[in-house]
């Protein structure tokens, strides 16, 4: 898996794609948890009055904001740990998507559908974020299942991270040198795959 990640991140186009997906996922995650939201009154503001609360938990994998960043209509109640969690999940999603895209461009015998596990894994993490402190998804859906989701919240994020990691590992197995004979030595080289 390390080889796959190194290969992905060493190519500028793949790296850019991973970063874009990671940032998009991070923003979506922060928005669903309520850390990022509207309500700004214009202009900009950056205050960090609560660094002493950096480790203070609000719920499973949810931490107290330490600062507030406002730009135009957007307000970000900044928690260092929430942001790191969101970025880590976003990185995993980005790697899964780009690796899955690589796999899709392999010969048919080299794509076992491993990418879908990774993409499915991105959903529980979003639900976990939304279940804690700002149940936006549940209010929109109007489903009386918040109790069930809340009770699952402690396992949603680790479950998502596990699913994304397994997805990435499955892709890496099919692109790794060990399966090179099956894929005729095309592992980790999408350009050759496309030429075929």
């Amino acid at each position: 898996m390390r080889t796959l990640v190194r290969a992905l991140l060493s190519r500028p186009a793949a790296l850019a794609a991973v970063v874009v997906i990671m940032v998009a996922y991070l923003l979506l995650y922060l928005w669903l948890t309520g850390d990022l939201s509207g309500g700004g009154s214009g202009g900009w503001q950056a205050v960090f009055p609560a660094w002493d609360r950096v480790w203070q938990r609000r719920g499973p994998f949810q931490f107290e904001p330490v600062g507030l960043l406002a730009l135009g209509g957007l307000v970000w109640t900044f928690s260092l740990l929430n942001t790191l969690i969101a970025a880590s999940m976003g990185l995993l999603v980005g790697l899964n998507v780009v690796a899955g895209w690589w796999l899709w461009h392999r010969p048919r015998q080299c794509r076992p559908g491993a990418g879908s596990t990774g993409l499915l894994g991105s959903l529980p993490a979003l639900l976990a974020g939304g279940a804690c402190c700002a149940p936006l998804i549940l209010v929109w859906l109007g489903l009386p299942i918040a109790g069930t989701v809340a009770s699952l919240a402690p396992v949603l994020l680790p479950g998502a991270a596990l699913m994304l990691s397994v997805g990435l590992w499955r892709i890496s197995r099919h692109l790794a040198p060990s399966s090179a004979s099956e894929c005729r030595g095309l592992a980790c080289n999408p350009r050759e795959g496309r030429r075929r």
Partner: protein
Amino acid sequence: MTLSLFRGAALSTALFLLSSPPVLAGPPGASPPDVPVAHSLASFREAVRSGGPGKDGIPSIDRPRFLPATEARLDDGEKIIGVYHRGQARAYPQRILVWHEIVNDQLGGDALSITYCPLTGTALGFRRGETELGVSGKLVNSNLVMYDRATDSEWPQILGVAIDGPLAGQGLEELRVFWTTWGAWRARHPGSEVLSEQTGFVRNYRRDPYGSYNPVSGYYAPDSRRLFPVMHRDDRFPPKTEVFGLRGPEGALAITRQALREEGVIDVTLGGWRYTVIHDPGLDTGWAFRNPQGIEIRPSSLDFTAEGAIGPGVDRLEPVNGFEAMWFAWAAFYPDTRLYQGAASP
């Protein structure tokens, strides 16, 4: 020898007493409680659900700061929770309390907890004694389950009675608070103070995670669905319809907002006792009284001041706490509630 033994024992006892942590008393209250408990305590405990955040994950405000009304940046239509106690008025903006749910405050020399549950639309005040109330992170019938920091007993806000812990079965002492708008509150209490956004926590106080009251939308819309299961379901009204409720030892009574506004003064019998509820057009809420003498109150004779309704006969009524609540939650806590929809309704 005996003397030295005695000295040693006395010294050990003194050291033990000094080193023991102080035992804090729980909040003051009545046991048995003054309010009805329609389900068994065991049923309530079984119906408790995790709300998502952990204990104190929704942090109470324990060192509130206040601004004078002239410095408050509130629109007239914004919802606030108002308290008038011993000649002192304070307003707690809903958009701040939606993030904290409890303010442990001191007002007129008394230690009070001002509480608000966004999921049931209920605001209640309680005397807290030497302790503080906190948010347990649990819900029952979607309603905030509070805990007291002295005994860790758990108290659903609407019920006002501990369902778990050392104080299970004890009722809290309630204090009337008002669910109204800033414009209405300021008109009644021009000298009111307002809770500051300097709460010690970082939150986006310009945004409500559940929806909006101005205009009503999202979770607060009458027809929108509840998020958590309830112990009893009653579909006579859309779930989030606001009713004015009061409780006595004999049972519970819910009055529709429309009936309260239209009739001005409502006389209703509950468990053989007569209750009188007076509509306050300024704050658009009710003042509830027990009326054992059957005194007739004429709406045209009433005036409303900071102290409440005044007029002939009002001083002979016995005040009872009342508060607004979403219908689904009221019916879940009080399945046998009497419902008053107007004199013309059955």
